[in-house]
Structures are given as structure tokens and as C-alpha cells.
């Protein structure tokens, strides 16, 4: 038996990055006991690619792409992955009194998802999971790592990130105006996401330009940034329900 020097962090964390989800996805896995971290990270990237192939509105062959192109009255068969994201989106829509909305066009009542599939009720409705899909993909990648026996690690999709296991990860916030990063927090066993306020509102320099949310799961962190932005309220009552906290900055 031999002890590893605690400072030799490169020896313990295997870290890889690939372009995915329209951004850079960085994955780290505990490789302390040679636990097959490389294969686990490969599986996590594959899982993200599979989620993106189902949910991306930019891919006409995805379930969401096919829904958007379909006529009113169409029913699109969706798998359990898509169903769970749509169910979460519906729950957030109701809980936020409509502040969170994945539908573009004719609005939130023009689609429905049930055991039979995804129903298109109005011709103009389009779905965009951009406000929740990235967080969901991060959670799915974390599950893929755990399923391969990785005890601790992280997945960061361009700032929507989750850390799991014993690791406490330093979180730096990017300075969006002039570049560089500033240490903001340390996070263990949880998720953190940042979103920008819509163009137009950010021009008002007196108002904050970004919302960040910490939550137990990345899907909630990602989606709740949109609720904080839409409400302008970093103490929105929904945050507490999901065990989350938020900052406008």
C-alpha cells in the first residue's frame, strides 16, 4: 500500500471535454483506484449525445424536431427520456403560474404529453427545451458515470454543472463583460447553473444581467434560472420548494 500525495490532483481526476449541446462539456471522474474512469466518461458523453438527439429542436429528426414540423392533431411517439423532461416542464409551468414555458407560438395549452405520446393541438405551437434540456442532459450524464461505478466527479455543460460524491468543487463565475473568472462558491453534491437575461433587458446597465441558481439537480438549477429571470425575483417562492437558492448579478 502507498499513499498518494494529496496535492497531486492530476493523478486522481481524469478530465475530458468535448463540444456538445452547443457548448463545451467538461467531465471529471474520480480515477483514484483505476476504476475505469475513461470508459465511464466515454459512456457519459454518449448519454449526452443520445439525449441531444431526442430533444434538440435544431435536429429535424429528433422527437422535438418532428413535433415542431408536424401538423395540428399529430401524435409523436416519445421515449421515457423525453417524457420525463416534458413532465418536469409541465410541473414547472403549473408551479410558476406560466412563467416557465417551453412552448413558442400559440402557447402552453396547444400541446399535451401522456402515455400515448406527444399531442400537437395547435398548428403553430413549437417546443423548445433549451431552458431545461441542458440541465437534464447533465443529470443523465451523472447517472451514466454512477452506473459505471464512479464514486465522485462532475459534469459541466458550458456552465450548467453538477458535482456528485465526496468531491467539493470550486465554482468560478465568468466575467461576461470582460473575460476571466472569479471564485464564487464551493459546491458538493449539487448543481449550479447560470443564464443571461434576454437581450433588451440587459441593455439597462442598472439591472443585473445574469441569474445563477444552485439546486440539488441540474434540471432544476437550469430551469429555475429562467423563473428567476422572468420574475426578476432571486427569492422566488418556488426556489425553496426545490431546495434551491438564487443570485441575480
Amino acid at each position, binding site marked *: 500500500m502507498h499513499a498518494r500525495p494529496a496535492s497531486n*490532483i*492530476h493523478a486522481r*481526476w481524469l*478530465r*475530458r*471535454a*468535448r*463540444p456538445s449541446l*452547443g*457548448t*463545451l462539456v*467538461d467531465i*471529471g471522474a474520480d480515477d483514484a483506484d483505476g476504476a475505469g474512469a*475513461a470508459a465511464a466518461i466515454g459512456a457519459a458523453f454518449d448519454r449526452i449525445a443520445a439525449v441531444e438527439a431526442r430533444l434538440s429542436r435544431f435536429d429535424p429528426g429528433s422527437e422535438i424536431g418532428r413535433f415542431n414540423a408536424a401538423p395540428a392533431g399529430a401524435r409523436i411517439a416519445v421515449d421515457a427520456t423525453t417524457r420525463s423532461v416534458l413532465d418536469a416542464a409541465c410541473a414547472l409551468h403549473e408551479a410558476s403560474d406560466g412563467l416557465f414555458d417551453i412552448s413558442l407560438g400559440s402557447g402552453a395549452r396547444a400541446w399535451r404529453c401522456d402515455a400515448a405520446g406527444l399531442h400537437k393541438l395547435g398548428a403553430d405551437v413549437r417546443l423548445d427545451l433549451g431552458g431545461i434540456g441542458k440541465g437534464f442532459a447533465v443529470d443523465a450524464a451523472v447517472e451514466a458515470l454512477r452506473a459505471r461505478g464512479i464514486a465522485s466527479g*462532475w459534469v*459541466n455543460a*458550458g*456552465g*450548467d*454543472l453538477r*458535482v456528485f460524491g465526496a468531491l*467539493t*468543487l*470550486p*465554482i*468560478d*463565475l*465568468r*466575467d*461576461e463583460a*470582460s*473575460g*476571466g*473568472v*472569479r*471564485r*464564487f*462558491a*464551493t*459546491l*458538493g*453534491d*449539487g*448543481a*449550479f*447553473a*447560470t*443564464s*443571461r437575461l434576454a437581450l433588451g433587458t440587459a441593455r439597462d446597465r442598472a439591472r443585473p444581467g*445574469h441569474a*445563477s441558481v*444552485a*439546486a*440539488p439537480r441540474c434540471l432544476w438549477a437550469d430551469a429555475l434560472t429562467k423563473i428567476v429571470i422572468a420574475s426578476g425575483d432571486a427569492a422566488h417562492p418556488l426556489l425553496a420548494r426545490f*431546495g434551491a*437558492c438564487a*443570485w441575480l*448579478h
Partner: protein
Amino acid sequence: MRLTLVGALTAAATAAPAAAFAVDYLSAEQAAQLIFPDADHFAPRDLNLDAAQLQAFAAQGVKARSARWTVRVAERGGQPLGYVVSDEVLGKFELISYAVGLGLDGAVKQVEILSYRESHGGEVRLPAWRRQFIGKTVASPLRVGDDIANISGATLSCTHLAEGVRRIVAVVDLAKKNGSLG
């Protein structure tokens, strides 16, 4: 969830200078081996695009950027398996180097990020800032890469990286057609 705030988001805190950020993931050689694990040899082939070829790229909407390229041919027992090309792109504040693996048909097989460097200002556009990283690999990491911090922010888009991958696809396609990879 274990969250401890160590910074503040007050005006005073954000007026303080921001730090640079860098991660080294893989060397170009490690990436080539990761993308083609069965390869026993990578044969470098140098490619010099002439003016007409650069113009043809521009006509396809591809910014060739450089006339000189090196394509590594992944081989096993002397038989080609595919190609690996590495390159780097500039974002608003970041410099990203990456490697693209392509199959023998020229289709993208895998993209691996080699390193990520975020400047703390506009230096990313300064050749002197970029030059300091030439020759840096995983074997000689920078001090800033020693901690495992992660960045959260809203702006990182990989549009320029997607453009870079398209450029490499076009370069390999050309090299295949003119016999440079034989």
C-alpha cells in the same frame, strides 16, 4: 447539497481583477490514440494549400485560415484506419485547441478538446498572449491548470469550434482527393 459562498457578487467584488483560467486535457498524441485505440502508428502528412485551393474553400463558405496543415494518418499494420487533425480556435475570451478524428470516408468520428484557456481581458486577440501556450502540453501543464475549478457563465458558445471542425473536414476532403494522404 453542500454550498459555501466564497465570493461576493457586489459591485466592489466585481470591480476586482478577474483571474485567467486554463485546463489541459490531452496532448495531440494522446487524443489521436484515444480516438483510434487500435492504431499502432500515426503517419504525419504535411499539406500546403495553394491560392486556388484557399479560394475554393472560401467559395464553399469555409475560412481556411491557414495554408499549412498536418494530417496524421492512423494506421494498424500499415493499413489506414482514419485521420486526425488538430487545430485551435479563438472565442470572445477563450482559446480552445482540439483534435478531430475522421474515418476513411472523411466523416467526423470524434472531437476531443486538448486545452481550454480563458483570458482575463481582451488578451486572447494578442499574438503574444497566445504564443505563451505554444508547445504546452499535458506533460508541461501551466500552474493555473492545477486546480479543478469549474466555470459557470452564460456566454460560452461553440460556434467557432463548429466552424473549425467544418474547416478540418474540408481540408481532409481536399487532401484525400489530391492524393496527399496516400
